[in-house]
């Protein structure tokens, strides 16, 4: 086993042994390159016919998941990162909404930026954008490179796969209920599985969908219920809005933000085992609010989670506080509107989009309070 031998024994090895090790390594590399050359990822070259574009999430290297709520689908697109050194900086662009509008040939009001995702290492920023708001509205996937150049990723000819999300989440299949409509609010790739959170435009319910990647046609579903901590002895089936995987003692968990705005934890083991599950409410972030993005980062060796909200300002939480809260029984008695976790405010202004580039850098789209423009910038986690 060359990997075991290499670090300790190579210096005292005879030349012939060195050659053997090198040959063995070359063979291993050869096997790997064959595996990469013919990936069984289910992707095929062709036109990705998105009807709309929304949530974005990076999956395995070079794979970007794209939500199409109108088409009730999730696409996996191949977006290979350029070879080379890992990028360490993100360009700053003022009035990005105006620039996107100019590039798409419309006024800024006809541009709706849906989501932002940053590719690790390449630093390429992907933006899902709807061009226009009426009947002629078109989904567009834009990229911003290191130089700040705004380009389009053509969906006309791209290696991709499409997953249709039409199976009813809870009811008996035999009863053949009509296909429901779903607004996909968040995607997360966790341990080889794509997790899909959505909001129905009819039933008020909470369902988490799961599918492995490469896609399989059958989507697993788990109905999620919560104790609404702020209303004591009552539970509800409010829809999950955004979520984030996080590790507690080596066990994968989900931290989920709800519409109104409890923060809830679920163990992934439980999500996989059950078709119905009650989460543990660990905090209440306050009424009238929707948590739009959650990202992890590190500061002075400590793990934090940054939460962007639509009506409340951005908040940050210590991961250790979340872990500690997760060990407790959870909120099941009547409490005030904002409890459970100490939230620290963050001086970031109005955050429209948020993504993690790496442990040290967060990428932001913020609304400038003076010019009203939408600015792209990055922020070192030191200053969060």
């Amino acid at each position, binding site marked *: 086993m060359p990997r075991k031998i290499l670090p300790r024994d190579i210096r005292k090895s005879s030349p012939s042994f060195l050659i053997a090790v090198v040959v063995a390594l070359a063979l291993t590399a050869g096997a790997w390159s064959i595996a990469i050359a013919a990936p069984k990822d289910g992707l095929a070259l062709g036109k990705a016919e998105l009807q709309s574009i929304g949530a974005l999430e990076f999956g395995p290297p070079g794979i970007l998941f794209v939500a199409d709520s109108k088409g009730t689908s999730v696409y996996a697109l191949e977006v290979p990162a350029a070879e080379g050194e890992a990028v360490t900086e993100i360009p700053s662009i003022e009035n990005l909404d105006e620039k996107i509008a*100019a590039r*798409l040939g419309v006024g800024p009001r006809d541009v709706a930026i849906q989501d932002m995702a940053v590719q690790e290492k390449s630093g390429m920023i992907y933006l899902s954008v709807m061009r226009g*708001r009426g009947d002629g509205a078109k989904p567009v996937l834009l990229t911003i490179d290191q130089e700040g150049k705004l380009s389009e990723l053509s969906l006309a000819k791209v290696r991709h796969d499409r997953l249709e999300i039409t199976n009813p989440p809870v009811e008996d299949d035999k009863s053949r209920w009509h296909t429901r409509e779903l607004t996909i609010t968040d995607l997360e790739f966790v341990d080889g599985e794509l997790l899909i959170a959505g909001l129905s435009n009819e*039933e*008020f319910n909470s369902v988490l969908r799961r599918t492995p990647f490469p896609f399989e046609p059958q989507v697993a579903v788990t109905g999620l219920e919560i*104790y609404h901590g702020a209303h004591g002895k009552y539970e*509800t089936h409010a829809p999950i809005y955004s979520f984030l995987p996080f590790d507690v003692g080596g066990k994968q968990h989900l931290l989920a933000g709800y519409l109104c705005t409890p923060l809830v934890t679920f163990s992934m083991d439980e999500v996989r085992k059950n078709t119905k599950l009650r989460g543990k409410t660990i905090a209440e972030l306050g009424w009238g609010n929707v948590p739009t993005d959650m990202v992890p980062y590190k500061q002075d060796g400590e793990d934090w989670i940054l939460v962007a909200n639509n009506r409340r300002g951005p908040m940050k939480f210590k991961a250790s506080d979340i872990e500690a809260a997760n060990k407790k029984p959870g909120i099941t008695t009547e409490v005030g509107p904002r409890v459970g976790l100490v939230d620290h405010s963050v001086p970031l202004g109005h955050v429209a989009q948020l993504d993690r580039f790496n442990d040290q850098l967060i990428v932001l789209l913020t609304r400038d309070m003076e010019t009203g423009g939408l600015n792209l910038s990055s922020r070192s986690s030191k200053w969060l």
Partner: protein
Amino acid sequence: MTATGRCAAATLLLVSISCATEPSSDPGSVAVIFVSDPAAAHFGSVEVRGLGSRRALALERAANSTEGPAALEVFTGAAFPDAADPDAGLGQSGLPKAGLPEGQNALPPVLGDLVADGDRLRFTPRYPFVPGQPYTARWRPVDAPGEPISEPPSSILLSFSLSPSDAEPTTAVAQVYPTAEVLPENLLKFYLHFSASMSRGNASAHIRLLDDEGRELPYPFVAPHQELWNKTNDRLTLILDPGRIKRNVGPNLEMGPPLVAGRSFRLVIDKAWLDGQGLPMTHGFEKRFRVTDPDRLSPRVEDWRLSAPSSPTAPLVVRFPEPFDHALLHRLLRVFDGSGNPVEGTLETQDHQQVWNFFPNDPWSQESYELRAASSLEDLAGNTFDGTFDTSLEGTPSTEEPKGGFISLTFQPVSSR
């Protein structure tokens, strides 16, 4: 056209146009033209004419190699203060006072394809030109590999815009559900139905909920980033902030529920809301309603009155003691025949969503039929057969799982003989 201009529009659709060139010893060789084509998906293209075919091809290749600036680019916005009146933008020398913004204010060019066609170079936008939106095309002679500049070294600016639509507004709010004039304090949803498709992304600016003193309620609805439209964009779902309608919930204590029993409210929709064609509505809409005590009870199927069809073509009629969610009545109630196959037909609701009529496509036979209601069917407050919207956990083991599934009722059509 301006004095030295070599730009024009080959007009099929009315466009406003203005152009200018810089001084040139031989301004006659190259012309920039907007070619309107209302039948094409993109409504038109911009052409540079008078180039040699080899030069045009070389410029196409150079533009697509992503090195250096393209010879022909189109920008969003007018290079002239008033594109309809070119003279307004010209100084004494006949040159434009205003050009394209540069430096910090420079905007990137419109996405599109540059293709050589004989002695022409043609720009076609990736996405259609928008009527009413000004654009500026800029021709700049640039070197291309093997084909250096052979034109006069002057750039040409051409501002143009497609005439905005003169269509009359036709869209209006068709109905708001629930239609009842008395609604529970813990009402969960409104459905806004429109007569045609609407534009997305501006709903909150056009909907207000007012109390009986005309005061606007702050943030009564959940405002997710994505509005909850149906696929055809003619129905919008509004969810009243569930954090405010549950009992004892923080916001509820902080500022009370959005709707208060005993009082009257108005849901007001203004006509400035743009439809799918970008036109305002013909008129606004107002729904007045009175609010009663909250509904905290699960529906009971025992309370449903099912009237079997009185003839082979008569409808199945189901009467409920309370209104149900309009959209879910259309999706979560289904009729099956004796073999378990779904019966196709049409349905309508009456009496403010308290009566459900099902008309079969084919006459009923004499067999026994089954009506199935999904247990997730919601009343106006989101209570279902599985439980109330906010279920008390007192005395309930916390490990109990919600039910799911459906409720079944059988009936046999009455023979007409």
